[in-house]
């Protein structure tokens, strides 16, 4: 028995070093991965050829993607750099996707079928300006018309075949901004229309082959233009003047410029500020005035005439040539919970080619963009499909009066994440009866056994996968015993809250934030952050848990905030309120009221704090703790960190009794000439620490300095605040601080000479791990700092503990001067890092793993033991037994330790961990453009059997043992008998 225990222990230890690894057939079992693209900006259809119908889109997340028009799946996708925003997209030569990005300075061509980059051209740009891409629509592929690009003050003509710049024109001197490039078909002359300082219209006629200016005409417009422009024909555009009250038709027939002014008041009674909706409609113009949409026909001589008007807000597509020289366009408008899609001919507005009414989910908001495409039906008539972008960023394809597919692209811009419990099953914790008969049960386990012994045939493997997914019951909507099934609540930038199931990542419910008062100023608030508002336990068990969503109307910091309380089980908004003050900082307090609602403080820009919930009970709880509420603010631009304390009620200014004034307690000012704050970080407030003491191999005790009020601050020399490569090692240094946020006392300061940011850090228990760039070695480094309490170090003597002469029960207070000491160590790390997180478990007993989101958008799990300051080159035997790894200069990157295995979380921005009920296991959710979820067991699942556990083998063993016992019994009987006979 003892040997067996020892052997299993040995087995456990030998496998412990590789704590995360996955077999290929286990992929997708506990993890899921969802691919998104973001809010679509431009869309170009590619449906001419037979075969795969696709749509090329570019998005606000800097993604260019090719989508299957039938199902909405991604054929291919590329996520460009964060500073590489896409300005335009087009298809050239019928085989290349052309994207213009970086303010018109980078032009790339991608192969249409597989997304391989074909060529890349860098264009000159001298100034910031709007950029414009004009890809010739020529049906004859053999003729090489150049791509015309305007950006940064230069006009370029680029060959579509190899990206060679054919010619360029410098317009930087005049301040000329190109508004439209017209390439009349069959002609080599292109018309370039633009404005100089928005007051002078200029038309150049340029030979597209040589770049020579054939003719140039300009004309002053005294009022100035607003910049909104709509092309109506090959020789006319309509613009708005700077007062937005006059429409100006600019004709440039044969190089002559003519203006024709039409005041809006002539067109419509109630005039107001106008807005041009359509970009490209032939002989038509859509103008929005006073929330009404007017369709204005542009006559032959530039005469404007209202032909139709819609009372509701409308989104409009560009016009599209259909048969017989006719042009059609699509418009979408709302009516209650329905949307109406109409396709009309431009010349005959009464002739509605298509009128479809589609029931639309209220939580998608309004239609933002419409892209239309036509196809020829079998009866030779025109069919239309429309791609619409909704307010919540979702992308839908409408065809034949139905939503063919939809993509929840809002999930590509997650801003905050929290987790919530699922409701309890009706009969308590219910585990479904999955196995019906003993035979099936045994069959399943025999299959699993075959799988784990590599004896399974491909069909068996499929059967095993199916069985696993089915038997785990992971997709149910009830709470499970191990806490594996949870809801992930994700707040997105358009203000939509999603609840995702951890089992398969499906959307359980979603809810679009609404403005409580339907005010004009704030139609739709942006989501900022998410807090646990009510987590019922102990008492108030019958209440549903709820979350607090903090939103903001508008983008500036002083914009008024909006609070919304959402029931987690149902996804319904319980209440919402317009709080009437701005939101700078939201502080969850460690107090809850009798219904388990957590008290929150919200600081505004004026320096007041507001208490929520606004109940007298909350107020009395808060009054009791009034003296003990501290908080800090970081002014990164000025290099100041301030500590604040409550002063009193601000009843002198307002009658609001839930409003409080504050007073500054301390400030830490960093010298602006030598230090600039680049990163601040605190511990997660809900983190659980299992033990305060750490036992060394030599039976020595170390006490962790575990304080919730520690702030990690990293500063860098102002010169080193830029990118790598912009500074020499001598010019830059990185300094990190640990600051107590109650007293402002600096507990520790560590300086790294010749290093620079960006700093990515993680703070847990009593340690900080941060990642930065070492300019001298030209490598990334990771440093760990552990902070220990010196004042408790004396409590080692057993007699002291017995006699009570220890200070362990003395309360930890920030008022007394803490005696701390730190240990730190640095290592090289071979990759750039986007974010770092740490696993968190229910009781904090399980050892921790760092989750490093690399620049390759993968997530690496690194054992905390690798970043332990006690690592030495030659650890003693005792230290080795304790699990100390010999010191190496570089942290290892073990491919099997990538928790994302063969997936990439494109555009990775954050990693969130949440404990499950099982101590060994933690939930990991990573978000960026993609979403990824998995469950991790940093020290293996020591408290439960794995899914792989072979019950069949156990059964066989037991049977074998019973048989052996029986046989030996029979044998021994026989022997005894023969002995007796002897």
């Amino acid at each position, binding site marked *: 028995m003892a040997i067996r225990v020892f052997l299993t222990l040995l087995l456990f230890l030998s496998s412990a070093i590789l704590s995360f690894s*996955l077999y290929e057939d286990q992929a997708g079992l506990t993890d899921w991965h969802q691919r998104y693209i973001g809010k679509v900006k431009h869309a170009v259809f590619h449906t001419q050829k037979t075969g795969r119908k696709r749509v090329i889109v570019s998005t606000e997340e800097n993604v260019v993607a090719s989508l299957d028009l039938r199902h909405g799946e991604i054929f291919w996708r590329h996520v460009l750099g964060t500073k590489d925003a896409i300005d335009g997209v087009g298809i050239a030569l019928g085989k290349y996707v052309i994207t213009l990005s970086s303010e018109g300075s980078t032009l790339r061509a991608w192969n249409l079928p597989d997304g391989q*980059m074909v060529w890349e051209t860098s264009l000159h740009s001298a100034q910031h300006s709007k950029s414009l891409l004009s890809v010739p629509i020529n049906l004859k592929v053999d003729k090489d018309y150049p791509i015309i690009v305007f950006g940064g003050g230069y006009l370029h003509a680029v060959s579509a075949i190899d990206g060679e710049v054919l010619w360029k024109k410098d317009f930087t001197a005049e301040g000329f901004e190109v508004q439209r490039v017209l390439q009349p078909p069959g002609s080599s002359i292109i018309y370039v229309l633009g404005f100089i300082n928005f007051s002078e219209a200029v038309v150049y006629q340029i030979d597209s082959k040589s770049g020579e200016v054939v003719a140039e005409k300009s004309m002053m417009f005294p009022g100035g233009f607003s910049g909104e422009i709509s092309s109506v024909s090959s020789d006319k555009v309509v613009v708005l003047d700077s007062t937005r009250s006059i429409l100006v038709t600019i004709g440039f027939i044969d190089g002559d410029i003519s203006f024709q002014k039409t005041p809006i008041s002539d067109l419509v009674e109630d005039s107001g500020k106008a807005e041009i909706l359509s970009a490209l409609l032939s002989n038509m113009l859509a103008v929005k005035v006073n929330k009404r949409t007017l369709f204005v026909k542009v006559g032959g001589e530039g005469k404007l005439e209202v032909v139709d008007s819609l009372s509701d807000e409308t989104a409009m597509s560009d016009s599209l040539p259909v048969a017989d020289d006719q042009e059609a366009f699509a418009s979408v408008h709302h009516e209650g919970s329905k949307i109406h899609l109409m396709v009309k001919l431009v010349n005959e507005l009464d002739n509605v080619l298509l009128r479809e009414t589609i029931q639309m989910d209220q939580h998608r908001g309004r239609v933002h963009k419409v892209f239309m495409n036509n196809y020829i039906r079998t009866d030779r008539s025109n069919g239309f499909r429309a791609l619409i972008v909704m307010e919540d960023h979702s992308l839908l394809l409408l065809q034949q009066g139905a939503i063919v597919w939809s993509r929840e692209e809002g999930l590509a811009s997650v801003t905050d994440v929290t987790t919530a419990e699922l409701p309890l099953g009706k009969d308590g914790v219910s585990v479904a009866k999955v196995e019906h008969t003993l035979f099936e049960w045994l069959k399943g386990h025999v299959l699993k056994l075959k799988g784990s012994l590599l004896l399974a045939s491909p069909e068996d493997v499929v059967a095993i996968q199916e069985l696993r997914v089915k038997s785990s019951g992971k997709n149910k909507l009830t709470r499970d015993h191990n806490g594996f099934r949870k809801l992930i609540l994700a707040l997105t930038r358009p203000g939509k809250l999603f609840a995702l199931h951890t089992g398969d990542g499906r959307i359980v419910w979603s809810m679009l934030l609404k403005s409580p008062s339907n005010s004009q100023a704030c139609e739709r608030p942006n989501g900022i952050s998410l807090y646990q508002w009510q987590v019922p336990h102990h008492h108030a068990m019958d209440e549903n848990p709820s979350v607090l969503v903090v939103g903001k109307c508008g983008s500036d910091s002083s914009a008024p905030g909006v609070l919304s309380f959402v029931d987690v089980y149902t996804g319904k908004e319980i209440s919402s309120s317009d709080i009437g003050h701005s939101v700078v900082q939201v502080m969850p307090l460690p107090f809850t009221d009798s219904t388990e609602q957590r008290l929150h403080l919200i600081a505004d820009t004026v320096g007041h704090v507001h208490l929520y919930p606004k109940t007298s009970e909350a107020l009395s709880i808060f009054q009791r703790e009034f003296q003990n509420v501290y908080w800090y603010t970081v002014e990164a631009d000025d290099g100041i960190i301030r500590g604040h304390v409550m002063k009193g009620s601000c009843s002198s200014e307002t009658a609001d009794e839930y409003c409080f004034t504050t007073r500054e307690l301390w400030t830490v000012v960093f010298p602006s000439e030598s230090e600039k704050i680049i990163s601040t970080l605190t511990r997660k407030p809900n983190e659980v620490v299992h033990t305060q003491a750490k036992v060394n191999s030599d039976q020595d005790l170390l006490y962790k300095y575990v304080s919730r009020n520690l702030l990690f601050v990293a500063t860098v020399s102002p010169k080193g605040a830029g*990118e*790598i490569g912009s500074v*020499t090692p001598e010019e830059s240094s990185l300094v990190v601080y640990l600051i107590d946020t109650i007293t402002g006392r600096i507990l520790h300061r560590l300086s790294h000479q010749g290093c620079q940011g960006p700093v990515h850090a993680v703070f847990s228990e009593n340690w900080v791990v941060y990642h930065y760039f070492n300019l001298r070695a030209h490598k990334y480094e990771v440093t760990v700092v552990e902070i220990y309490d010196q004042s408790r170090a004396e409590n080692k003597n057993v007699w002291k503990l017995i006699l009570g002469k220890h200070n362990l029960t003395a309360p930890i207070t920030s008022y007394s001067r803490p005696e701390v000491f730190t240990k730190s160590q640095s290592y090289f790390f*071979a990759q750039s890092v986007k974010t770092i997180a740490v696993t968190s478990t229910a009781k904090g007993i399980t050892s921790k793993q760092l989750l490093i989101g690399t*620049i390759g958008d993968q997530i690496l799990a690194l054992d905390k033991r690798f970043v332990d300051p006690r690592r030495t080159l030659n650890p003693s035997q005792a230290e080795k037994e304790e699990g100390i790894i010999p010191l190496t200069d570089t942290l290892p990157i073990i491919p099997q330790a990538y928790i994302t295995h063969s997936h990439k979380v494109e555009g990775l921005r954050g990693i969130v961990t949440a404990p499950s009920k099982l101590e060994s296991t933690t939930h990991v959710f990573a978000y960026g453009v993609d979403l990824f979820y998995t469950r991790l067991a940093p020290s293996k699942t020591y408290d439960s059997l794995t899914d792989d556990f072979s019950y069949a083998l156990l059964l066989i*063993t037991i049977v074998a043992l019973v048989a052996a016992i029986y046989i030996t019994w029979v044998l021994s009987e026989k022997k005894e008998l023969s002995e007796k006979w002897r």
Partner: protein
Amino acid sequence: MAPILRSTSLFALIVCQISLIFLFASTLPISSGSESEDSYTITGRVRIPASTVIGHAAKFSNIKVILNGGQHVTFLRPDGYFTFHKVPAGTHLIEVYAMGYFFSPVRVDVSARHRGKVQATLTETRRSLTELVLEPLRAEQYYEMREPFSVMSILKSPMGLMVGFMVVVVFLMPKLMENIDPEEMKSAQEQMRSQGVPSLTSLLPASR
């Protein structure tokens, strides 16, 4: 898993053109243009030796080349070449990300004095490159390999050990018992009876 960094003669021919640029960089500036003094172009190539291609062969279309930790991101052309435009003089870091491969970051010095001369060094191995041709240090396998079926793997599993232990006890112990002198056996049994049954807890530290 040793990195394979053999360069064939054929390959040398192919990259002859680009190596020329780097060899004579002091005379051939690779600056991006005339109008901006301090912006240069870095051109290089990613090459994945055919011998390291495993299962999910990395397509060129999914490889990203990243300058200075995300300042610029570019992609590979079909022939494996990549270019960074408008790079100021200084010391830069280039990283290549391809699923299934590990590339060492490359320190790239763009010299202002020599009009954009480029010097490259692998930061992991401290090997300097004469030309900017990046090859993976190693292929990465993200999954544990399942060990093929073997009797040993069953025997090694805890249950296999259990069975094995039982077999040993059942078949070997009687043999051992036979060898023991009956007198000695008797005295040992006496002793055991007087001491009581040894418990698991008393055995544990002894086994360690």
